[in-house]
């Protein structure tokens, strides 16, 4: 079982749009599309856990926090994201962070 929350990313969205198109065209069944998505969940969880070594730090103002069903949701304002130790990546005025429990998996 892998988290499905990564479907809500660029990679996940584009896959779902592609699958939708193929379902519309009758090329694949919704059931097959679901299998593809489940495979995507597995693949992206593995890839992030094993292939990514980047460490990041960020600072900002916490606007809102929410903890529901073991999922944290934060809205931060005026956030600086930096790659550790100092290299600046990007600043944003507002960002939403959705985080599932990293220990339960």
């Amino acid at each position, binding site marked *: 079982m892998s988290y499905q929350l990564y479907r809500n990313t660029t990679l996940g969205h*584009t896959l779902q749009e592609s699958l939708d198109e193929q379902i519309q065209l009758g090329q694949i069944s919704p059931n097959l599309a679901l299998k593809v998505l489940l495979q995507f969940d597995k693949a992206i969880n593995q890839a992030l856990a094993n292939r990514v070594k980047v460490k990041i*730090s960020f600072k*900002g103002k916490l606007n809102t926090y929410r903890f529901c069903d073991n999922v944290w949701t934060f809205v931060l304002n005026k956030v600086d994201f930096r790659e550790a130790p100092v290299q600046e990546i990007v600043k944003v005025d507002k960002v939403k962070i959705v985080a599932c429990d990293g220990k339960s998996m």
Partner: protein
Amino acid sequence: MTTSSQVSKLYQTVVDDVINNVKEAFLDEGVDEQVLQELKQLWESKLAASKALEPFPQEAEVVLAPSNVPMRMPQPKASAGAEAAAAAPSGHAQKIAGAVAQPPQTTLQYQPSDAAQAATMALPAGIFRQHLATLGAGGQVQNIAVQQTGSGQYITLPQFQTQQQAQPVPIQPQQPQQTGQAVRIPIQPQQQQQNFLQQQQQQQAQIFHAGQLLQQQLPGPGKGAQGLSQLDGNEDTSSSEDDDDFDLDDKDDEEKEEENEEEQREEEDPLNSADDVSDEDPTELFDTENVVVCQYDKINRNKNKWKFYLKDGIMNLNGRDFVFQKATGDAEW
């Protein structure tokens, strides 16, 4: 640096991984492998079209439509900032205008602007003239001239009047015409019919009307004019309340107009606050272009200081994708 090329490589491995591992599922369902290859192409082309993997201007070693790069960077920032800072007030204005402007759609077109302005600031003279013109059609020009000299804010009263004037005749029988106070109550249901958005506010306003009615009764008996106006109201369907107001002398007019203005505020303020709480917050607050999807190791809070320990994240910031293995964050609430 989490360069876009690294993210691209990571994404490509995921794409290949998924495509390779669903081959069997495709075969099991009897779907041609060509469809699977099409899926891959669709996915990859959509990824490219998302521009989430394009490099930043300074790291343009990979030449990918450089003209697009400077365009995209400022846009999300500006819009995100504008949303956070300015969206709420402008939303208010629109909602006020939209809500109050609905009745005018059935009556008179210029009223939306009136309503919007009345909610925020004093009204320009031109709008007065418009009201004068429309009310003049009802044969009440003189009375309104008095209002105009009284204070610019009394425009709210004419608005009420114009709405009522435009309302259909058959409603009149519902109105008990014996006193000026009674006239107001039936008006509320009429407006509710016209404007669903204001229903709640109208109901609240009725309570205030009830309070005002008591106030009105005190000066009321002193003026014989009230009785006359009520008689007029019986015949003249829509403008009974207007007559009531206009038949009183200037001071009473002013008082009543102030009351009417208060009515309007009471109607509009709850509208705003209700919208803020119920509608805008959940949607706008959590609606942002910049999203981080990840897992948490620890979330610590000490008073208003929060610390985040996150892992395995994918971020879309200002239209670009980034990934991280670990992320630590500090924020004050």
